[in-house]
Each structure stands twice: as structure tokens, then as C-alpha cells.
């Protein structure tokens, strides 16, 4: 057989081995070169087995999640900054939004007011997003930006409720919940916290600066205002505002008669709430780090 045939035979056998065919079966197909093929196939199999024995450093993999989340937040902020480059054709919707924002600058505040009530998928929503981005650009300090992100996270939560009322699709609601989560992550990053935010594990609510009570059955949290924590956190007011909204939504969900709508509300609501709860715990971690 020619060398090309040897090469093809080896490749065919490797593909068969990948499919779980026994080496003997492969070799039986090429009896005339079986003695040449066998050691190469065994070496390939052993190399593959060795590869699988390389232990994955789970700590490093977990740490990587944190790095990726931070890089992602920076990417989002960076791409957020690209709206300045409205002259690029790629940001058509942002270009439109920018034009509207500029009009607002000349006194069109009525549009601004209407846009504030818009929800994802509506024509004026890009205006609202542009306004938010503008505010983030002009907020110089990290604390100021964090405050805005906390406010926007709360607004996304309100939007989810409106989306349900306006019969928007689950996909739009999920995207809004993801935006809410992104705002919350940025609050944590800007406040000096570390990502990923750990899963909520509350053993003793009294230990928390903010009184957080987690119902282990429903997964719901309740927060009561605490003077000490209010002084400590500028975010407290925002978080409490959001918590109150969560509570309102919770009541609404329980009153909802339409089962499909109720299920949709629950899905987005609990997702938002989980991120919110994680943010609260992240704030607690920041407090502990600062105390040390």
C-alpha cells in the first residue's frame, strides 16, 4: 500500500475508535498494514486517555468565572460607550436614540417623560436607554455610577411587571431580567465587590447589616430597614425601594387569576429577585472586607 493509503487507513481507524469501535475491528479492515497501524493507534488512544487524566483545576476554573464576569461588565460598559460613535452605521437604533436625546437637549423633555414609561420592544425604549447611558457617562464617581445602576436595576424590575401587563413575549421579559442582573453586577463591581456573587446562604439574618430574612421554603426574602445599615450604605434606599417593589409584585402574582400569566410573572420575578438577593449579600461581603 502507498503512504497515502497508510495515512487514510490511520485516519479511518482513528475515527472508528472515536466512535467506540474496538481496535481489533479497525485492524481487521487493513490486515496488510495492521502491524504498522496498531502501535500508532495504541499511542493515539493512550495519548487521548492521558489527556482525559489531566485534572481540571476547579479553583482556577471558578476563579475564571469571576474574571470573565468582570471582563464582561467592562465589555458591556465599553460597548455602552460606543454610543458616542453614533456616526458608525452599526448602531442604528442608538443613532436614532441619540438624535432623540439631542432633541431633548433642546427642550423636548416631553418625549423624555413618555420614554420613561416605555418598556423593551417599544419605539421609545431606545430613548430611555440612551438617557440612562448618558447619565452613566456624566456620573464621574464609582459611587454615583453604582447608585444609577441600582436605580436602573429597579426600573428593569418595574418594566418586567409592565411587560406582563402589555402581553409581551417571555423572551423580552427574560432579556429585561438579564439587564436587571447586569445592572446589579455592575453595582457590585463598582462598589469594590468581587464577582461572581455567591449563591445566597443565610444562616443567621441578624448577622447581616441589613435585616434579611430568607424563607427556605418559598425562597422569598424579606428585608426590614435598619438604621445602622442605612447610614452605612448609600444603596440601601434603592435596595429597599426595590424590595418593596418585589413585595408588591409578589402580592400581585398571588392575586393573578390567569395561570399562564402568573407562571410568566413568577419566572421573571424570581430570577430578578435572586440576583437582587445576591447583590444584598455581596454588599454584606463588602462591608465585612471594609471592616477588616
Amino acid at each position: 500500500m502507498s503512504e497515502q493509503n497508510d495515512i487514510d487507513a490511520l485516519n479511518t481507524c482513528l475515527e472508528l475508535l472515536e466512535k467506540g469501535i474496538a481496535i481489533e475491528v479497525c485492524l481487521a479492515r487493513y490486515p496488510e498494514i495492521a502491524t504498522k497501524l496498531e502501535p500508532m493507534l495504541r499511542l493515539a488512544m493512550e495519548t487521548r486517555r492521558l489527556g482525559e487524566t489531566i485534572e481540571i483545576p476547579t479553583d482556577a476554573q471558578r476563579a475564571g468565572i469571576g474574571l470573565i464576569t468582570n471582563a464582561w461588565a467592562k465589555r458591556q460598559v465599553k460597548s455602552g460607550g460606543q454610543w458616542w460613535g453614533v456616526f458608525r452605521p452599526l448602531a442604528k437604533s442608538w443613532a436614532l436614540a441619540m438624535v432623540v436625546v439631542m432633541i431633548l437637549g433642546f427642550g423636548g423633555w416631553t418625549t423624555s417623560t413618555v420614554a420613561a414609561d416605555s418598556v423593551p420592544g417599544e419605539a421609545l425604549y431606545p430613548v430611555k436607554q440612551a438617557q440612562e447611558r448618558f447619565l452613566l457617562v456624566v456620573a464621574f464617581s464609582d459611587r454615583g455610577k453604582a447608585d444609577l445602576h441600582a436605580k436602573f436595576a429597579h426600573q428593569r424590575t418595574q418594566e418586567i411587571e409592565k411587560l406582563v401587563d402589555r402581553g409581551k413575549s417571555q423572551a423580552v421579559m427574560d432579556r429585561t431580567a438579564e439587564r436587571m442582573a447586569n445592572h446589579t453586577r455592575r453595582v457590585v463591581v463598582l462598589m469594590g465587590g468581587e464577582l461572581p456573587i455567591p449563591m445566597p446562604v443565610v444562616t443567621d439574618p441578624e448577622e447581616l447589616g441589613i435585616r434579611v430574612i430568607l424563607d427556605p421554603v418559598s425562597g422569598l426574602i424579606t428585608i426590614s430597614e435598619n438604621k445602622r445599615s442605612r447610614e452605612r450604605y448609600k444603596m440601601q434606599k434603592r435596595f429597599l425601594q426595590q424590595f418593596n417593589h418585589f413585595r408588591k409584585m409578589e402580592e400581585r402574582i398571588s392575586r393573578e387569576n390567569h395561570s399562564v400569566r402568573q407562571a410568566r410573572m413568577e419566572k421573571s420575578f424570581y430570577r430578578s429577585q435572586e440576583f437582587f438577593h445576591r447583590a444584598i449579600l455581596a454588599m454584606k461581603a463588602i462591608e465585612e472586607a471594609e471592616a477588616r
Partner: protein
Amino acid sequence: MQAEIEPLIRSAQEGNLSAFGSIYESLFPKVYRYVAARVGYGPEAEDIAQEVFLKAINSLDKFQFRGPPFISWLFRIAHNLVVDRVRHMKSTFGPMVPLDEALALPDAQNVENQALQALDVEVLRRALGRVSELQRQVVLLRFIAGLSLAETAVAMNRKENTIKALQHSALAALRRVMHPIISEAALR
């Protein structure tokens, strides 16, 4: 592989972090093994593997479905990073020893079996240091990272027939260089 992760890639390109997180979870082990087999275990390999995904985030918008499969694209990033890093720490592999075609092939079956039994990651890494760059890359992509022939071809920017020939010559070369390495290790 591409079909499985395509929805995740699209979602990540739209800004969904958790979609990218899922990609990371599923591909980190392959990337790490590829890197570790080249530069050895430890923080260096961990850093490079993480950096691959950080670079991927920065270039995610540039990734096009009409182009190379995502996994091939990712391993191109991994390869470039590894090559850069190796260049800066030449001592990792030791001096590159050109493959000596005159090296005797272990002819007896029991010698071959002994060699396979003694094969561990360190021996493999040293053996890989003695084959050509292309041979080394094809072994790492095909057998350590587990890429298909087509994915390997795209990752290495070569035709599939070239990869077939390379994997053949790479396995033949590894057989030649492994035996002396194992004997050397046994004498220590």
C-alpha cells in the same frame, strides 16, 4: 459541537453573560488540557486557559458563523497565546531537538507496550518538545483537546488532507522519540 453551542454563542453575542458562562463551563476543560499538555501543569497553564476566554470575550463580536467553527476559532486564540508564552519562557520545553529520523523504532512488541505503560503527561510533554511544531499541534488538538479532523484543520488553517498526513507523521515521530525519553527517565 458547533450546533450544540451555536445558540449559546448567538445569545452571548447579544450580551447574555450566562450564555458565555455556559460556553466557558463546557470548553474550559478542553482548553486547559491543551494548554497544560504544552506548558505543564500549574498557574501558568491556568492563567493561559483563562486568558483564552478573556480574549474570546473581547473578540466575540467579530466571530462570524460563516467563518471557522467556534471551537477552532477558540483554539486559534489558545495556540497564539501558548506560542507567545512559550517564546517568553523557552526553558519550559528545553531546547528544541529536531526529530532525528535515524532514531531506532522500538521493534519488539513488549518494548512498545512498556513504553505505553510508562507514558505519562510529563513524558508526553517532553516527547512533544522533540517533534515539529505542526506535529505537536496536531497531536494536542486531535488527541488532547479532542477536536475532529475538520475542526483541527480550521484551527490550524490547513486542509484536512494535510492534517491527515500530519497526524500520521506526528504519531510516527512520537513513537521514535518516546522510547529514549522513557529509558532516560527509567535510569534516573
